[in-house]
């Protein structure tokens, strides 16, 4: 089995930056809450680092959301788009 290069591996999309901004948290605060360096949060937000399962679960616990609401293998629509879609479906 040929191992793929890191640049060829499937990216993990996330809406960490939006959630953090929504809750008014700094990278430092999020980092301290989940026990990593604040730059690691930056790398995560930019999609330059794929978190371990443990870190993903810690982040989901911090934001009180399921993991799949924060991380996805497919590009994620913005939260405003999702809100608009859910309103349209309910009306």
């Amino acid at each position, binding site marked *: 089995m040929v191992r793929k290069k890191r640049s060829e591996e499937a990216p993990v999309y996330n809406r960490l930056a939006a959630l953090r901004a929504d809750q008014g948290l700094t990278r430092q605060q999020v980092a301290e809450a989940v*026990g*990593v*360096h604040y*730059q*690691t949060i*930056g*790398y995560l937000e930019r999609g330059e*680092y794929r*978190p*371990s399962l*443990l*870190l993903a679960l810690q982040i989901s616990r911090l934001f009180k959301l399921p993991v799949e609401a924060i991380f996805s293998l497919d590009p994620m629509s913005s939260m405003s788009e999702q809100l608009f879609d859910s309103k349209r479906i309910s009306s």
Partner: protein
Amino acid sequence: MTNPDAQKLRREMIDNVRRKAERDFHDTRFDFVRPLGRRRALVIFVFALVAAYGFFNYFDYPEFVLPILILWGISLWLIRMSTRGIVDYPDEIVDERMRSVRGQTYRYAFMGTCVFMSAYMVFYIANQLMAKQGWVAPTTADQMHDLSFCLFFACMSLPSAIYAWNERLI
């Protein structure tokens, strides 16, 4: 490590290192060498100094050796400060991304060390073979010692240098 005293000692040591790491991770004194371009320039400078050390020692210019060594020491220290000494901390101190980057760094450093060692051996064997044919003067034991020190300095610089070269933000 099952001895309770040994476990306590280990915990104390880890706590001390953790406190030092906390200071290092928030240290802004060396921010002037932390931009990627400056870190890379320092890395090039360090290896240029190692090469110069080898050259001047090999061709017997001892007056240049000490200043080069001092410059090398200062430059390597600056590189280590620019990387916040992350390559030296135990796993308990650094987070998972740093551990992953560091693992990659040590892999490259090992490969680099192997390349330097191979080059040294090839140089030695080639020199001996060519000297037997009378094509070149044989390298003396002192010259090989000089080169082995050069090799040592290069290998010692590798982990910090690779981390400083590769990591975009520190």
